[in-house]
């Protein structure tokens, strides 16, 4: 940049300090320019950015008194106060010494230690006996001399002073060591040239204020050049939580595909969460180890459905053999935190009029499992669920919907392989191809509800396509989150910086 451009870019503060750059310290510049320290330091940095000067700092360690040190400088060190007392009494019991000297426990302990070390006292049978002669008693301790001489530059300390310092540092808040930074300013060649130039600001417009505009004061003047490349402070605005942003997107995907949203309680009876979904009562998922149980029961309202589900488990319906065990209604009444949104599908299908087919529903929400909390485990997770009920749907349609759904979620290539769930047959597992990681990601299950599930709900076998991929893995992949706990950590700083869900 040429000198002219540089001059045009100087801010009022920079102009003010420029003539004083040959001063020794920042404090001097402050005084001369009549600016505060923050403004001067900031302006110096800006001038450095404009290559007018080079800034460097020298760090000095300064030894000064701490809170107690300042106090002792006035009142005397505790050991000095104890010495005064001993000078009167020569011998005194520990108890009396504390009472009369008014020293705290800690102070007394420190004083006794200090004086013993100097061989000024002896302690016998809980009595303090003064030793040493009069001269010694009245002579100032090295510690006292040191305290009086503070503040001192650490690097200037003598060997003796250093050992006193080390001792005093061990006592509470007597000494404080601070770092003092002093700036060294070196003008560059353009800077040296500039310092000789006449700097006037009369022809410069700083901020454009309403007054400037009203009075047309800008006419015939120049606008001060900004350093347009310099960085500006971070800004953040209000926004949705990133998990909810992605959930809202999934909602859009579902409605675009013609699905209607289901909603319902998170606390449900085992009946809806398990029994209506043909999960046998001795299945391990129905143990407290796996599922959150609440010590309350829910009455099963629909007697006809209850009977039909019982039959489905015990002896089977629609040609099934069932699970062949005695189904227990009490077990079905137990309340749980839902372990999948599939319980909403069961509740929805139970209410559905078969005249209204085809019907397509979706749900998206939190589910629970009794788990520990670490980077890879959590007790709450999001799942999204879709069902299609129609007399004429088949396995190929299931694959068609899955392909479409995951494509909209951003996964072009999917793989479907056999899997197992108690309530679907056929059952599939969905893997999506991750183009960057070049690997298959397992995203969750799908299938066609078994007749043992749909016959009690509908009164006849109507195939229902169902899929319920976990949602957290998709959004963690998008936001590049490795630790599950990050989802609900609510670190405000991170939330402010997090990118939006752009899909």
């Amino acid at each position, binding site marked *: 940049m040429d000198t002219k451009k540089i001059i045009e870019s100087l801010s009022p503060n920079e102009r003010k300090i420029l003539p004083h750059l040959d001063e020794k310290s920042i404090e001097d510049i402050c005084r001369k320019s009549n600016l505060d320290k923050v403004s001067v330091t900031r302006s110096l940095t800006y001038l450095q950015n404009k290559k007018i000067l080079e800034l460097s700092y020298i760090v000095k360690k300064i030894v000064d008194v701490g809170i107690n040190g300042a106090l002792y400088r006035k009142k005397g060190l505790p050991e000095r106060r104890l010495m005064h007392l001993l000078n009167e009494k020569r011998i005194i019991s520990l108890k009396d010494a504390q009472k009369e000297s008014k020293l705290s426990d800690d102070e007394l302990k420190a004083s006794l230690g200090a004086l013993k070390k100097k061989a000024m006292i002896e302690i016998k049978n809980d009595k303090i006996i003064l030793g040493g002669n009069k001269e010694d008693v009245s002579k100032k301790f090295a510690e006292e001399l040191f305290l009086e001489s503070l503040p001192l530059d650490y690097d200037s300390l003598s060997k003796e002073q250093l050992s006193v310092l080390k001792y005093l540092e061990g006592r509470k808040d007597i000494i404080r060591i601070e770092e003092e930074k002093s700036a060294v300013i070196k003008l560059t060649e353009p800077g040296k040239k500039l310092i000789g130039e006449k700097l006037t600001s009369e022809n410069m417009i700083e901020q454009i204020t309403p007054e400037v505009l009203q009075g047309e004061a800008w006419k015939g003047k120049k606008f001060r050049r900004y350093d347009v490349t310099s960085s500006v402070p971070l800004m953040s605005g*209000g*926004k949705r*939580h990133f*998990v*909810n942003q992605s959930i*809202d997107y999934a*909602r859009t995907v579902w409605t675009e*595909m*013609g*699905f*209607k*949203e289901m909603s319902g309680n*998170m606390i449900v009876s085992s009946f809806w969460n398990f029994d209506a979904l043909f999960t046998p009562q*001795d299945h391990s998922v129905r143990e*407290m180890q796996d599922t*959150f*149980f*609440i010590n309350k029961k829910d009455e099963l309202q629909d007697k006809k459905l209850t009977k039909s589900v019982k039959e489905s488990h015990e002896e*089977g319906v*629609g*040609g099934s*053999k*069932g699970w*062949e065990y005695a189904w227990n209604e009490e077990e079905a009444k137990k*309340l749980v935190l839902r372990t999948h949104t599939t319980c909403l599908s069961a509740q929805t299908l139970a209410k559905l009029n078969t005249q209204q087919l*085809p019907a*397509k529903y979706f749900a998206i929400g*939190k589910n*629970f499992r*009794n788990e*520990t*909390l670490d980077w890879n485990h959590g007790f*709450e997770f999001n799942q999204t669920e879709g069902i299609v009920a*129609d007399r*004429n749907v*088949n*396995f*190929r*349609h299931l694959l*068609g919907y*899955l*392909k479409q759904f995951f494509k909209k979620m951003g996964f072009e290539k999917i793989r*479907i*392989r*056999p*899997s*197992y769930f108690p309530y679907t*047959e*056929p059952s*599939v597992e969905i893997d999506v191809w991750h183009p960057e990681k070049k690997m298959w990601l397992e995203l969750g299950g799908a299938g*066609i509800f078994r*007749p*043992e599930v749909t016959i009690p709900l509908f009164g006849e076998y109507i*195939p229902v396509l169902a899929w319920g991929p976990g949602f957290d893995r998709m959004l963690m992949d998008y936001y590049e989150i490795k630790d599950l706990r990050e989802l*609900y*950590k*609510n*670190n*405000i*700083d991170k939330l402010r910086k997090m990118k939006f869900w752009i899909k």
Partner: protein
Amino acid sequence: MALIEFSKKQFEDEIGKLDEEMKEKVAMFGTPIDHLDEQKVQIEIFPNRPDLLSFQGFRRAFRAFLGKDTGLREYKINKPEKNYLISIASSVKDIRPFTACAIIKGLKLDNSRIKEIMEIQEKLHLTMGRKRKKLAIGIYPLDKIKLPLTFSALEPDKVKFIPLDSDKEMSGLEILQKTAAGKEYAQLLAGKQKFPIFVDAEDKILSMPPIINSQTIGKVAEDTKDVFVECSGFDQKVLGRCLNILVTCLADMGGKIYQMEIKSGIAKKILTPDFTPEKMRLSTENTNKLLGLELKPTQIEKLLEKMGYDCKKGEVYIPSWRTDVLHEVDLIEDVAIAYGYENFIPEIPAVSTIGEEDKKEILKRKIAEILTGLGLLEISNYHLTSKHNQFTSMGVPEKQEKSFIEMESSKTDFTILRKDLTHYLLKTLAENVDVEYPHRVFEIGKVFNIESKTDQIKEHESLAIALAPGNFTEMKQMLEYLFRMLGIKISINEPASVPSHFIEGRCIGIKIGDTIIGTLGEIHPKILKNWKIKMPVALMEINLELVLGR
């Protein structure tokens, strides 16, 4: 999740080279590879297929899937020899009523084989046996025991034998208290007047199921050639299938299967194992309808044979070790697996339906839009919380509080459902004291309470906003802005009782009509102190049900 592991070499010698194509085939058989390295391969087995829990079982099914040795596998089964008999005493009737047994001869065992058999046994215990609750398996050296056998029950102090891996004789109770297996499975026998035992003809105890075998006569060793195998539990059919899984696996290891006669006072004499296949009809029409294919009956038969079934005269013969065929659809799934999931052409049916969002979700989103427009940041917390955060930190003595929903068991200290969002917002502020202020946050989500009159559980949507630094006026401005934008008229009053986390005189109740929907105010410094927040906080929380329900 059950994993089975075998050596890569064994797989390649007996099945085929484990290249990319083979790996894909294994996945498409429904048994995904979990881990593979130069030495070993680990495969995941889903709980419907316990017959695949051994290398032998997996090889049998997977080779057929590859088109080698298809159809129902035949095993030679020998009739019982002299004294191959077990009597079930009436004393086990209410404790562990059934058993299915077999004798396998001519095994060649070494240590790795014994380990392999024990692993299969453990896998079956875990899955089919529901951790030995439903069934337990025992395997014994035939040369150490004297036939015929009895399955009976004795008082715990009268049961006396040296349990496996011990050198001391113990009573039934001691076994539960002192051995590792005893401690692990003690609850399965807890409270029983008598413990079940297998006893030989010389009154020696073979084992105490479902806990442990005898060290002296119940331990298979390298020189063992013939074994007695039993499965005990509560359902004869299930026991039979489990025994079949195990003995066919031992037969594939080179053993010869002999039946045993089971005599019981209550039922008629039976012979186990029994490999008679169950028969099921499979309709071609149903198969094609469910799969969206146009297969001919002969094609379906071929596909079923690849899955280890036989088809005769329109009936499917199901191997007696398969436990998962309850309905025609189970066969149809196997047809689909044999056809290859990768070979189905995905299709979206030409059916039109109208998409629709839940009304509540739309309104929740609108509220969030209004608040983010004010520059607020949405946060999201767990639905579960700790008693400490819900009560103690909010100035409510934990012991006083009774109205909350607690989990019967939890692996973390998040043991109750949150009653409000307020405490979670303060927790969030507390965890962010080092982050640049101002903190302006909100959360929308479910909270859970017990209605005092009816003792009914109520979950409802709630909204809470917190400002730090914040004051009453600003918070109230925000409340009024929100409801003006929603077009809902609210009124405010000074509440009769101020929630303990607010400052009295700086708190209002919020109403729609006559219904109180929430409170707003400045948080009391004593509560801020609990959370170590050194910034004034204004906060409001409202029940959204009335707002969303309009």
